[in-house]
């Protein structure tokens, strides 16, 4: 592993740790930087407003659905940051390249978290309306499985996007890492 890759990964791991710490102690107000765009996108897709309720999150009264702290998508962002950082840092490089890797990883993981989390919430709202819970398939279990499935698919898509991004940003003449 090159020194610059190690540096980039160190910064990314520190960023992941920082995000995790921030998530643990943050209130809903502190998480508006990620909740706000998610709420806006969900509102756009459903056509009904999600309004901010102090101390609670973005709530839709027609859907009786609350985008609260625990559905901010930060877990996805942390996982995505690690994954994209790993994918983008393969090409090595120094100085500016390291900063580019970190910046691109953060941007991709943030955008990915907002988009994938939006899809996850939309499916969750739809499942709630469909009222599928029965026997072992409780609403909570269905919701968790749906979240895992959407996040897994989201990570796979993000992996592809990160590789494309890495190829596009690769310095001319560099080969793919072995």
């Amino acid at each position: 592993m090159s020194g610059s890759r190690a540096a980039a990964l160190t910064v990314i791991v520190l960023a992941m740790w920082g995000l995790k710490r921030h998530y643990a102690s943050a209130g809903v107000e502190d998480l508006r930087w990620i909740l706000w765009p998610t709420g806006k996108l969900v509102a756009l897709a459903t056509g009904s407003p999600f309004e901010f309720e102090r101390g609670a999150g973005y709530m839709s009264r027609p859907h009786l659905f609350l985008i609260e702290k625990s559905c901010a998508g930060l877990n996805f962002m942390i996982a995505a940051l690690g994954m994209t950082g790993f994918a983008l840092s393969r090409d090595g490089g120094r100085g500016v390249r390291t900063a580019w890797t970190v910046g691109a990883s953060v941007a991709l993981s943030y955008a990915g978290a907002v988009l994938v989390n939006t899809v996850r919430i939309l499916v969750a709202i739809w499942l709630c309306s469909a009222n599928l819970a029965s026997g072992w398939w409780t609403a909570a279990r269905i919701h968790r499985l749906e979240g895992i499935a959407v996040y897994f698919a989201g990570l796979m898509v993000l992996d592809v996007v990160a590789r494309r991004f890495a190829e596009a940003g690769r310095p001319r003449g560099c080969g793919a890492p072995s």
Partner: protein
Amino acid sequence: MKSSKRLLALCLLAPFWLGPRIASAQEARTDHQTLSPYFVVEGADPSLDQLPLKDTRVEVTVVGVVADVTVRQVYENRGTRPIHARYVFPASTRAAVYAMSMIIRDKRIVAKVEERERGKQHFEQAKREGKSASLLEQSRPNVFSMSVANIMPGDTISVELSYTELLVPTAGTYEFVYPTVVGPRYSSKSRAEASDADRFVESPYAHEGEPSRSELHLSARLSTGVPVRDFSCPSHQVVPKWDGPARLRLSLAESERFSGNRDFVLRFRLSGEEVSSGLLLYQGPDENLFLLMAQPPDRVRVEEIPPREYIFVLDVSGSMNGFPLDTAKKLMADLTQVLRPTDTFNVVLFADGSRTLAETSLPASPENLRRALRFIGPQSGGGGTELRAALERAFAIPRLEGVSRSIVLITDGYIEAEADVFDYVRDHLDRGNVFCFGIGSSVNRYLLEGVARAGQGEPFVVSKPGEAEAAAATFREYIQSPVLTGIEVTFSGFDAYDVEPAKVPDLFARRPVVVFGKWRGRPQGTIELRGRTGQEPYRASFSPSEAQPQEDHRALRYLWARTRIANLSDFGGRGDEAARAAVTQLGLTYNLLTQYTSFIAVEELIRNAGGEGRDVDQPLPLPVGVSDLAVGQAVTGGAEPELAYLAAALVLMLVGSRRRRARRAGSEAS
């Protein structure tokens, strides 16, 4: 790579595919969704004033036994967008609302009474045309809804309504109650089947412990004719000022400015021999009215009291969580002390469902009473309020031959389907009485009074644990020796007609028998009151010629009409066409707010061309002691999967990627 592209496309298209499906699923869900209160969502939009009601000013004047109340609600729009406000507020179950006016820019517009549908149409039209308008509708006899359209930015619009009510003393104590907030109601009715009058259930509430957002100012003036012996206000701090022994003025203390989260209760007693019996006469241009208040005899102790069966029906729903249920438990403990060893009893607990202590009622032995208290002890309050189902269960408990049954309901009354419960009690009453204990700082008195009335019992209100013991003692007194039974009122030589009530119920409490009616000709002849007290017959007579008709008694018109309306619709509950037509006619003739008539005031000036504006429901505080569980709305939160699942997903992806790479390397090598 092709599959990855497909996955990417799928992800991007998913919101567009899901959006319309969610919307249509939501439409179906909205129709099936039950009516429900909800917590207020504070909008982030500073241009919108979400708290349009700024102030409520109440002036109470008590002259003799009649209270006249003027309520002024002040609406302001401090935002930058026009708004249409709606405010749901309570009133006394006996209130006869006879006037309303809207004051806008120092101009007073007197409201007209119209048939409900017509009034609504006029209001909606004025709203669309951009005219300021206000509409007062009755949702329940004690729940009103005020709508004010086109409140422009910077506007102050006041709406003033007036009502009158008769104060009937119990054991010599007069009580005036001004309810300030409608508690959150449980409803199992779907939105699709709900009527306009049921929509008040969908009101926004602030969270538990948050004070009222609008100010309350209340002043009362008592002019009793007879010196006031003493007074108390157990609910609020008041500042009294005496203008003479029979004239008292009261106002809320400054610290009570935001106290609109509990009923205002004022009690007073007069010097001398409690209340004297009396006859009030009014001679009007079209009709004459009378009011007879006949003080009953002293309670007679009955030595031989037959054994009774008591079924306690206790509400353990979400709205009873905490302080109300603690009070109810204390009350239950005190009520069990009322029982004698020869009595039997049972307990039904209810919320969404119901449970009974025993299949048949148990002897009131110390061991069984302890067992009952253990049965109630672990309850903490949660779930809905399926009151009718609980009463069905109570009535279904096998009866013992020759034993009188009393059903004792203990609840805050926060349900929407009152009429359904009244009908059930009335239809299933068989040699028994239903007594109601309302628990809380702002109970649904309409339910309590209605159930007690249908069940030929009495309502009680216990607002704190300290009052439980006294309430239980009074209950024992009522049960053991009713004041007057088999009551009949007859007229000879006095041409009375349209008398209300047609049948006077038995009197448990020591309060006057109240009879309203109209009269023709000359005030002469005799009114006779007959009944039984203990085992003895009782008879009292009154002479109309001794009472002088007075112009001051014109409030009797409203009070008579209100009593007739109550008997036709409030507690009658059947809602048939004849009753509907009669109530509508009474409302229009006597200028009264009813279930079928509303007050409407319209400012004819177009102030908001196009009528653009946001509908804003004034948020209500939860009554003191009521927990968030009373709102109990099931909001789904969309928690994301834990990080451990994502880590597992990443490991899976890594393993998959390595295997793919290994396969590719293998195929290239071969």
